[in-house]
């Protein structure tokens, strides 16, 4: 027979085992400190992410540093404002804590955002920033003006400037950029002519019909710059008729063309920092830290000789 003391020991032993079990496999006694992981959805205006390479690197870097779970979402059809609103709605319903949006149409978004949930939104805006808005802004009109000023230093007054616009005026970014550039060039006495891509041939036909004498080409979008670069690379005779090819954007295609001399000069922004700061701003908005003033990104004009300069190299080819 077991004594009273023995029974007590067995009961104590069992209680000890139960406590041990509770400590090991449940959080009833020892609670692990919960690390809050913010769910952030980034919804851009494009159907592809080609123009967001460095932006995504910056975004991923910030995601690791701020312990955020950042999802990058492209549209099914580029520049579809309705679809973007649907996606914003979907992400909010799926529990996104914050949203970073490159709006297809800022007015449509502003009208709709009042009706929707309370998750803070950071805009990847364009143009003149509004005060008290959480936004990382690039002023594309100023960028266009800056590029045109640089072009004026390099090309003789009175030159023909062929401006490659989009097939349809859908992107406010491209329009702002071209308007800024055109205004400066026309004031400077340059003969500017806007052309649009035609059918499957794209810009080929318009480039092949370049005006007499040497012309300068200004591409309104990174896509137009890449296409024009490709056409000139393939056709040395045509390239001989071109005094310079200018544009914007730091896609790999643009940088390769700049390096190979096909592109003369481009205007760029620090896309890595833009991605990083947008996530940081979203986190600050969630934690009710920091102001809500917009951050305006600077634009830089670069040529082939600048590619290897350390300040630009770090910006254009960021290490993750």
């Amino acid at each position, binding site marked *: 027979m077991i004594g009273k003391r023995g029974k007590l020991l067995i009961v104590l032993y069992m209680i000890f085992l*139960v406590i041990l079990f509770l400590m090991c496999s449940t959080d009833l006694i020892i609670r692990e400190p919960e690390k809050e992981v913010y769910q952030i959805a980034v919804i851009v205006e494009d159907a*592809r992410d080609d123009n967001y390479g460095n932006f995504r690197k910056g975004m991923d870097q910030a995601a690791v540093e701020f312990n955020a779970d950042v999802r990058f979402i492209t549209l099914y059809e580029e520049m579809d404002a309705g679809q973007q609103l649907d996606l914003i709605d979907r992400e909010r319903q799926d529990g996104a804590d914050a949203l970073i949006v490159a709006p297809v149409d800022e007015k449509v978004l502003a009208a709709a955002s009042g009706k929707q949930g309370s998750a803070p939104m950071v805009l990847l805006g364009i143009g003149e920033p509004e005060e008290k808005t959480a936004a990382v802004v690039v002023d594309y009109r100023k960028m266009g003006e800056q590029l045109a000023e640089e072009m004026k230093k390099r090309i003789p007054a009175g030159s023909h400037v062929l401006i490659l616009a989009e097939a349809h005026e859908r992107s406010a970014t491209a329009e702002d950029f071209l308007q800024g550039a055109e205004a400066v060039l026309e004031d400077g006495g340059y003969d500017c002519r806007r052309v649009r891509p035609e059918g499957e041939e794209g810009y080929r036909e318009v480039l092949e019909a370049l005006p007499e004498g040497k012309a300068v080409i200004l591409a309104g979008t990174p896509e137009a710059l890449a296409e024009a670069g490709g056409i000139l690379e393939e056709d040395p005779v045509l390239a001989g008729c071109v005094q310079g090819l200018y544009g914007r954007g730091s896609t790999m295609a643009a940088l390769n063309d700049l390096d190979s001399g096909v592109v003369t000069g481009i205007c760029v922004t620090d896309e890595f920092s833009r991605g990083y700061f947008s996530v940081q701003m979203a986190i600050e908005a969630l934690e009710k830290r920091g102001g809500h003033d917009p951050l305006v990104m600077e634009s830089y004009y670069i040529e082939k000789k600048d590619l290897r300069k350390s300040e630009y190299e770090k910006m254009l080819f960021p290490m993750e």
Partner: protein
Amino acid sequence: MRRCCFLWSSGKKKKILALLAVVCAFLTACQGPREEEEKNSIRIGISLYRGDDTFINNIRNELEEKAKEYEQEHGIKVTLDIQEAKGSQSTQNNQVDRLISLGCDVLCINPVDRMDATVVIDKAMTAGVPVVFFNRQPVEEDMNRWDRLYYIGVDAKETGILQGQLIADLYREQPDRIDINDDGVVSYVLLEGETNHQDAMVRTEWSIQTLKDEGVPIERITGGIANWERSQASALMEQWISSCPDTIELVVSNNDDMALGAIDALERAGIEGVNVVGIDGTNPGVEAMENGKLLGTVSSNKEVYGSAVIELAASCALGEPLPQEYPLTDGRYYWIPQEILIQDLEG
């Protein structure tokens, strides 16, 4: 020695058993509720061996496109987390940890080192997350470790045979087009992928074997490893052009990027007429072919590639039966169809 607990009276035993039952019930309740909701969203973690490989970039674009199509067709939200391992297996292993911790339902892995997929498999097995490997086939022993491991890729032997056939068919139709100096022997140089890489070895072996089997008189001048890279291939080709001037008639390359590197070197040297064949059917490769620079390539169907990876991954994530349109060999392998692309020699 005293026997203790087994000598208790039956009444006490009942009390103790009842107490244990209560404790067990309590502990079970502590485990928390189980989620048995029907899934309307899935998260797919993708790790690529390198982000600057043209072929892998083409596949990445297809994966993104197909994920969107799947989302629209099935009404299930698909989140892709895409990481690039920059050629480091240890980076890829860390990425797998992060993807699992992010709650990915399935992993799609393009292994850095196909001989060393063990760690990835261990992590996935521990987390209970199925893995769809693609493009670089893990060794069979690894693949056999778990029934939730799959592989999607091209059959390297078939690729090699098709590349050999591309040249042999043209040689039969227009021997002068291949045997440029008309000496009865086709002198070739070989650009190979990584050392000891199974695909590189198998592609080379079967491409050359097919040429021999088809009766093409070939003679190897030299060859080298260019690690699938355009710049390395270009440098090698430059050396060969200077060391073996006017002898190279054909460049057989294990992929399109290296073939384009050879073309770069030939253009720099101002040499025309040398035939260059590649593999993969990448966008720049096909463009070079259309421009008359690349003789031909063996192309895997990228659209099928993207669809197969996404459909299989989604089925695994949702716990649904595997898609019938992509029948698996041995229950775990799906081979992507391939075709020969050759430049328009009439035009």
